[in-house]
């Protein structure tokens, strides 16, 4: 990496790409797993359904993925959404409470209504966050922390403090079914990713999000409707978090409002950051976010494969996050590649992004 000849310059170019370290980490993890557990990389077709460790990982990563996609857009605007875990709980509680009270829980229409209600609740929470952030101009960290604190209480209020358990085959299938041999969650994840990618990259939304995240005032002066766009992004993030909650809770059909989505906001943010999107806002990478989600899920699985106590996965995550952050930190790159890193380019008064949580 520290080579100074032209021969190594392409390596430097590749290694500077924002996807480089995340992909290296993911591939390294998979290879390590493949060595320890030889069948790890196999994908089989059983009864017309795809099976295999990688399929499982992909399926499990969908929750992270849905959350992280929404989070990624929010982070691009220079914001953050701490409420997504709580929103998962709210959406699932609303859906399952509805099914529980419905006359025929097994009917498709009940399941669809339940899904619609759950997503609507999530969107309402997203809109509330958006109102605080875009409408009132409250810092995103604190604005969304309100739902993080109160959200599970609200979800518990829906379920009456119980763990609502119910039955509905159609509803359950969104978490555990197959479509054309592919696990349903994976299909949902794929469709959502495609839609979001189209939404931000085929329109100008992506560029405008980035411009808002980098310099909100200047964007406004250039006529960008920053309020509307910011608001939209929080609603979208809420909606995706609701969907994640439904997909996550569907296999068990139990709305455990206290525990569902616990720490998920942190996992989602981690997936985004591992994927190479800076927490300051601005440039974002949806592909990197997907890689980030896959890394987190692979870590969960790797713990089992390496016969480690299942509780050590947090430790694992911590080490990977620290490693990736440090590998990507300017300081380390500076020491490897450049003799001097002027930490303050320009006059000392240059508007360096203040190091703050979520402005």
């Amino acid at each position, binding site marked *: 990496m520290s080579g100074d000849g032209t021969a190594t310059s392409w390596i430097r170019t590749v290694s500077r790409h924002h996807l480089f370290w995340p992909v290296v980490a993911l591939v390294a993890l998979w290879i390590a797993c493949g060595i320890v557990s030889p069948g790890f990389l196999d994908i089989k077709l059983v009864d017309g359904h795809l099976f295999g460790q990688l399929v499982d990982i992909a399926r499990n990563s969908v929750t992270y993925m849905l959350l992280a996609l929404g989070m990624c857009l929010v982070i691009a605007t220079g914001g*953050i959404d701490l409420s997504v875990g709580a929103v998962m709980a709210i959406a699932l509680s609303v859906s399952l409470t509805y099914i529980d009270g419905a006359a025929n829980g097994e009917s498709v229409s009940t399941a669809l209504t339940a899904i619609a209600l759950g997503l609507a609740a999530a969107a309402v929470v997203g809109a509330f966050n958006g109102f*605080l952030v875009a409408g*009132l*101009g*409250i*810092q995103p*960290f*604190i*604005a969304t*922390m*309100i*739902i*993080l*604190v*109160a*959200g*599970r*209480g*609200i979800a*518990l*209020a829906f379920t009456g*403090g119980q763990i609502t358990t119910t039955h509905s085959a159609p509803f359950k299938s969104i978490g555990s079914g197959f479509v054309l041999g592919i696990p349903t969650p994976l299909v949902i994840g794929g469709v959502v990713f495609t839609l979001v990618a189209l939404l931000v990259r085929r329109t100008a939304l992506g560029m405008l999000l980035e411009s808002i995240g980098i310099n909100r005032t200047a964007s406004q002066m250039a006529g960008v409707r920053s309020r509307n766009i910011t608001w939209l992004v929080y609603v979208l993030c809420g909606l995706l978090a609701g969907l994640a909650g439904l997909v996550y809770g569907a296999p068990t059909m139990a709305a455990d409002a206290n525990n569902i989505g*616990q720490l998920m906001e*942190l996992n989602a*943010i*981690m997936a985004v*950051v591992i994927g190479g999107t800076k*927490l*300051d806002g601005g440039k974002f990478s949806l592909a990197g976010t997907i890689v980030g989600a896959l890394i987190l899920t692979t870590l969960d699985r790797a713990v089992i494969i390496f016969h480690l*106590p299942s*509780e*050590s*996965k*947090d*430790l*694992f*995550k*911590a*080490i990977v*996050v*620290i490693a990736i*952050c*440090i590998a990507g*930190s*300017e*300081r*380390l790159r500076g020491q490897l590649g450049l003799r001097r890193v002027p930490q*303050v380019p320009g006059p*000392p*008064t240059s508007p*360096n*992004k*203040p*190091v*703050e*949580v*979520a*402005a």
Partner: protein
Amino acid sequence: MTAQTLSEKLPTTPPTAPRASDRWWHRLLDRRFLPVAGTVATLILLLVGGQLRYSTDDRSFISMRLFSNLFIDNSYLLVLAIGMTFVIISGGIDLSVGGVVALVGLVIAKLLENGAPLPFVLVVGVLVGTTMGALIGVMVQYFRIQPFIASLAGLFLARGLANLLGKTAIAIKDEGFASLASWKLKFGERPDIWYINLSMIIAFVVLLIAVYLLHYTRFGRTVYGLGSGDGGQAAGLMGLKPGATKMWVYVISGTCAGIGGLLFAFYTKSGYNLSGVGMELDAIASVVIGGAVLTGGAGFVLGTFAGVSVYGLILVICNREGLEIWWNRILIGAILLGFVLLQRVLVARRR
């Protein structure tokens, strides 16, 4: 150019008469103090409301007993929130404290189970927190990782280590530890007996040290300088040491988390890997309710003290009302919303 002809009195130079702004009450109404004034007002409101609603003829709601219980139940939170105050004023955040509380509890329980001497165990417990804080500080300061992510990694690290130490709650049976945990001074007569226990004393000592550090030392001013919105550049140009200070802020928060973990172990007399989940949020919420601004640069240790009191009182009142447990969270969320809106109004007025 005719600059001299245009020269006039500096418009911002007021006449040299004693000005009202020097008076202490005007200083109190300074916008820096308004959020804290809001906290104190809320506190008084809760106390008066509680007094009117729960007092009986022979028993007043506001009593030493109330305050004693409040701080017996929340001394660990107070210590965590004090550490968090330093971090938040510096413009950072520390999400690791809940995990550190669990880790410290388990370290203490495990060490005592294996017969380590008590004083050694207590010191090691606190130092575990200090070490975690130093680790986060290095990540933030040396590797320039955002505090949010660095302390998030710290949270997972602490939880992961705690998980490795034990997956079940370990009761602490050590006699010395038990006697420390249950030691208390008794005051008053039945039925108004109230106590001061060791946790309260420790928490108040930490409070005093924090007031000294933050408000009466150059270090404290540097912490505010870090939070002034330019990442400490100005503080650095003023010849202060923003880099080292940023590092220390996390060490302080980690140490407070270590002490908090110790107090929590006193409180529960056990160590458990799942304790302290979401405790970082309680701490952050208390600090914000206490008038600190999350972007940094403003806040007071005593404000945090008031914030923790408000937090504790809400729990007491929920309990008195017999509300379902989830109302706690909803109410604290609502109060948080109220304070956030208040801060917003104050910022808007500034413009």
